[in-house]
């Protein structure tokens, strides 16, 4: 597996490193870069590629295993879980997170659920009207 140039630990991202790594790995599965059942870099190799500590990558891998996203076998390395539809499920999870986030912010603004629904529809219309090239970005 080649070095992972697309990912960098962000200093401005306040979340812990291991969470950023987890999110990045989940995204790779979600967009289809990593197929279900595909082998992924070992913990050490990933640490070298990302230029972060092994312990942080280990933590990310453990959490991902707990969430059923990857599977690690002693002596055989790690791979994406063979669960069919994993990519889709991860995308759904991301949607859930965004929805929860939107609900929380709406609550802080004192918005009612009906208002939030309305805004959601407006957003949908806006996106539908956008040129094709801008759609499909995660």
């Amino acid at each position, binding site marked *: 597996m080649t070095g992972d140039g697309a990912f960098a630990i962000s200093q401005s991202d306040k979340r812990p490193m*291991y969470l950023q790594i987890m999110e990045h790995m989940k995204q790779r599965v979600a967009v289809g870069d990593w197929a279900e059942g595909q082998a992924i870099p070992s913990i050490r190799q990933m640490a*070298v590629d990302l230029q972060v*500590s*092994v312990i942080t990558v280990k933590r990310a891998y453990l959490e991902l295993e707990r969430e059923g996203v990857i599977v690690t076998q002693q002596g055989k390395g790690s791979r994406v879980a063979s669960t069919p539809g994993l990519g889709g499920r991860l995308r759904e999870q991301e949607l859930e997170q965004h929805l929860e986030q939107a609900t929380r912010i709406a609550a802080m603004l004192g918005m009612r659920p009906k208002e939030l629904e309305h805004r959601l529809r407006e957003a949908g219309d806006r996106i539908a009207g956008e040129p094709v090239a801008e759609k499909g970005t995660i």
Partner: protein
Amino acid sequence: MSELAIRMSEVSKKYPYFTLDNIHLDVPQGQIMGLIGPNGAGKSTTIRILMGLVHPDRGEVRVLGQRMPQNQVAAKWDIGFASEDMRLYDSMTVGWHMHFIQSIYSNWDAAYAGLLLKRFGLPAMQKVKGLSHGQRVKAALLLILARRPKLLVLDEPTTGLDPVARHEILRELTGVMADEGRTILFSSHHTQDVEQISDQITFIDRGRIIDSMDKEQYLDRWRRLRLEVPNGIELPSLPGVIEVKRSGRLAVAIANAFVADLPNAYETSGARVHAVESMTLEEIFVANVEHSREEVEA
């Protein structure tokens, strides 16, 4: 259980103006240990004792299984050491230094050395006195990296370097970790670097070790809570909280032993928790040093 690349037990050293007191330091093989602390805390002294350059007054030091300083020659075959106290020969070239090291160590990897020369942007034919500070540091590091030692002991390897040079060095240091038999101990002021690549962190201040543990666990224990305290409410003193600063109705509490229940404890007392934030290692550094100094004085 992996072996220990470094084991220091009860190490003490007394100087006229400074004492290193009862240092315990264990670095398992295959890990990166980051040593942080303010200036004058004792990082350099600890490293010198580790390298056998200084005899401790008390305690035992074992590096790669060898007793230091008695067996320092045997140990140093497998150690790469660089520090700010160390300089290459001004009148000789980078290339000469490479040949010099190669003539001593049989496991010099010439191909890797050539690659590093390019990556670090070092002119092989230039005399050391003509190099910038950053280039000197990189040259010293090249001499170590190219012989692939089992243990790297680096005193402030990224201090005084521009961001590009720091990035280059961190890249090579994390590259070392591809081999699980190799270990790195480094001290640094750049808490960002330590936070990024260390597996273990040791905190030293005024000659004492104040914390030494797994980095992830360590970062998990520290939290900053932003609170809103209505008038008339007294904030309780909770275990694990080492500092509370108030400004009108707002307060910031710093916890070094955070438990999931802590925000609830505040809410129960009548305060509102606006946010529970992770802290960067730099923020932890400052809070920790202040706290430990207060404790010692108390």
